[in-house]
């Protein structure tokens, strides 16, 4: 046995620890998407089967547990619903007129072609296991026609809100980068004042968005609560999808542009179902 072999044998634990740390660092170093996409895709395909199973079992247990209290609540709601029905009967007469008016307005504004994309519905089956990253895993993958870069939207509070974009696709699942991640950038526009900017996630915490590069001229025109929509520039996200509402306006004297804090339309803590848009790109 050579001297080196003797040293290695004596310090086996330390040598293995150093090797594992070096392997980890090398993996991080070479983890650019093009190099690691294959092992990550294979691993995700395998692990998503377990994620789907655990998610379904959890939902089933949760649903059964809630069903008893749900029955009691339903009974109370039935009484209320009967009262409301009488009120709604009166309202329904007005609704027919409103529908006709709405159809005419839609025609005028050319809203009938607002979303000319195929929408693929998907269920959220998992999120990032750690607290440092913020991905969402959905139960549709390449077998359902999903591809990297596809925009993801969700319907909440009566609005269609932008949720993120698909960044990795395995056979039965896909990983979505939410818009509140600091690595996410969306070309955006203020709906009423029509100023452009760039919306990205904030490093300060989950659920916050920042709109940057808005002209200082906009300071007097931007309103609190104004809707922010995607501008369609850059070609990743289609035009006109709601992103959020202006919550704070920051105008620093040493900066050439405004910074707006945006509250997202989508409440990510309650996100269960999403729609992946097949924009044909």
């Amino acid at each position, binding site marked *: 046995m050579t001297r080196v072999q003797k040293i290695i044998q004596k310090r086996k634990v330390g040598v293995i620890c150093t090797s594992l740390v070096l392997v980890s*660092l090398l*993996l991080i170093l070479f983890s650019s998407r093009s190099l690691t996409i294959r092992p990550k895709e294979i691993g995700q395909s395998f692990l998503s089967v377990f994620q789907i199973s*655990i998610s379904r079992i959890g939902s089933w247990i949760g649903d059964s547990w809630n069903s008893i209290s749900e029955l009691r609540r339903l009974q109370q709601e039935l009484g209320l619903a009967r009262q409301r029905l009488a009120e709604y009967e009166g309202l329904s007469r007005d609704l027919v007129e409103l529908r006709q008016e709405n159809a005419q307005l839609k025609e005028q504004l050319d809203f009938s072609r607002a979303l000319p994309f195929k929408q693929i519905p998907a269920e959220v089956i998992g999120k990032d*296991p750690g*607290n440092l990253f913020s991905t969402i895993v959905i139960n549709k993958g390449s077998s359902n026609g999903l591809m990297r870069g596809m925009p993801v939207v969700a319907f909440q509070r009566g609005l269609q809100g932008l949720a993120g974009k698909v960044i990795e696709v395995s056979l039965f699942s896909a990983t979505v980068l939410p818009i509140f991640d600091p690595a996410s950038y969306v070309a955006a526009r203020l709906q009423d004042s029509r100023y452009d900017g760039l919306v990205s996630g904030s490093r300060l915490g989950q659920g916050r968005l920042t709109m940057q590069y808005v002209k200082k001229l906009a300071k007097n025109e931007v309103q609190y609560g104004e809707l922010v929509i995607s501008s369609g520039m850059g070609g990743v996200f289609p035009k006109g999808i709601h992103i959020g509402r202006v919550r704070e306006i920051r105008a620093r004297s040493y900066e050439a542009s405004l910074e707006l804090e945006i509250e997202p339309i989508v409440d990510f803590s309650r996100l269960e179902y999403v729609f992946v848009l097949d924009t044909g790109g």
Partner: protein
Amino acid sequence: MERSARNLIIIIVILAAALLLQSTLLERAAIKGVKPDIVLIILVFVSLRKGSMAGQLSGFISGIIEDLLSLAPLGFHAFSRTLIGFLYGLFEGNIFLDPVFMPLIVVAAATLIKAILSSLVVLLFSISTSGYGSWGVRLFIEVGYNALLSPFLFALLGLIRAFKPRDKDKM
């Protein structure tokens, strides 16, 4: 198969199951978007009971699995978990694990070490994260959450044969 190798496989299977739980059901138990890191708690327990070799190997493998499930680059979690497994393994047999206080302390310290190591990698490799945000409230919620869970998990893990101290089966 050798007993120690069989035990290591059981430990890794338990860690993988914990990771899958963390990415699915534990999302519902999140406080302000922060969920507990039960994988770290198990890793600390394994390392203190079985030593550096078992600690670093299970840390590395569970870290790689976590990287596959996460947006993190491959090796990100493997790096911190390997080092934590190795470091805590050095204290094998030297720390008296009482039912409450020691688990709280060792797990809180491990969460802080994980944050330091992760921040170091984030800085070195310019990785974009939405997590701790300059060591904000989220980190301290995680420290508290992990620490509070540790006495219960340690008690539960103590019942599993594969986690028995090494003097009964040498690794």
